[in-house]
């Protein structure tokens, strides 16, 4: 079993976490100018990189949403970043 770090609760079992989506997607705006294609791309398409990834996860018991940086091949976990800090980091 792996331990992931919740920015609020600290290290917890991987079973308490839920993957939501890849990080870094920007919601296309303004809505009335967004084509169906662009919207579908935003909603559904993934980069699914091999290697280092940044993803949005939620820690189910406390409800904290955060960025989890990890490796999609080795499964190594690098770090967890609260969503509010992520924009500044980029």
């Amino acid at each position, binding site marked *: 079993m*792996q331990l992931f770090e919740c920015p609020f609760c600290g290290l917890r079992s991987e079973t308490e976490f839920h993957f939501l989506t890849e990080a870094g997607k920007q919601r296309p705006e303004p809505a009335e100018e967004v084509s169906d294609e662009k919207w579908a791309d935003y909603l559904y398409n993934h980069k699914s990189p091999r290697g280092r990834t940044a993803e949005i996860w939620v820690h189910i018991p406390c409800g904290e949403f955060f960025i989890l940086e990890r490796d999609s*091949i080795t499964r190594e976990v690098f770090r967890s970043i609260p969503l509010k800090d992520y924009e500044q980091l980029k």
Partner: protein
Amino acid sequence: MDHYSIWSLIAQGLKQKPAWKPAWRKAKPKSSYEVIIIGGGGHGLSTAYYLAKNHGIKNVAILEKGPIGLGNTGRNTTTIRSNYFYPESVALYDLSLRLYENLSKELNFNIMFSQRGLLMVAHTPTQMEICNRIANAMILNGVDGELLSARQVLGLIPLWNRRDDARYNCHGGIMQGRGGVARHDAVAWGYARAASNFGVDIIENCMVDDFLLEAGQVVGVNTSKGEIRAERIGIAAAGGTPFLVRKLGQDLPILDYALQAFVTEPIKPCLDVVVLSLGTGTYVLQSDKGEIVFGGGLDRIPTHTQRGNLPTQETVVSGLLEMFPSFGQLKMLRQWAGVVDVVPDSSPIIGPINKPGVYINCGWGTGGFKAIPAGGWLLAHLLAKDEHHYISEPFGLDRFKTGKLIDEATGSGIAH
């Protein structure tokens, strides 16, 4: 090609040194083909076979990065069924099931298809209502589905947990009698042999790195064995597909997950249907060798490696022991994982992409094996006619743009 029959078996058996010929040719790549198929798993091999058989296109090469049939084709739990909810899905999966029913004869290769029946067990009155709904959907879609009482279900699976403290009591179930299992390797080998016999080149250990582009058009591929040109390209590379088509600027709505399977030591026959519990999410069957083969849901962490995680193993194994406590005496022989390409609506993607002449068949997620004949049939149709077969039409990429998803994950209320 040798014709396999009881007589050829006896004739070879009587020889001091049986002289079986290799079932398919090991081909060297030519410089160009009419059609290239990337991916030598079940779907790629069956595509080549149906291109030759249904459409007369025999100048075809299959490019496989390793040996054929060793990806998910050789890693699944061999179950074949068509108990889906939406008419589009049933048309697709039942085409596959019907093709499977005649496949051993057609390929002259015993795929050991055993239609032993697929049983879904319900544990609560609510789950029985879900079963009712599924049975009605199946019957409306023209597929066999039979609602069973608790007594009937227990008659089929006498080893089911009937203890007073059982967490999931049997409340009834639903049966698809035409469902069953087949030998997965034999499906790959049978299609490979039949395709090779039509003159298709099966090129193993040939990794496709990139596409050859001329004036924005795809004219071939760059491989570890050099450039190979083709008029049309079919991609049936499962989890590898997104990486290939991204080189053409096409993104796909696919995430890769690991899906695990487990096998125990072989025992005497004790389970003659495929059983899925709606409560535990674990499904189980007994192989012809006597092993108990079982699996469950996806690992919930996206990954590209064929390795499973421990919490999911725990969930699946405890599910099995809850269903059949007596299996707790068995030793586990093997556990493995395959990488499955999961689409948001749990339905496959079959159709053209952003470049003319390039077609994909991927996104089968956890259920690609049962769809091998249909996937090949439909991709071959696209490659030969440059237009959809009516069955594959709803499964194109444009459904994500139009919103016309075929959401089987919610539709049938079970894991796929």
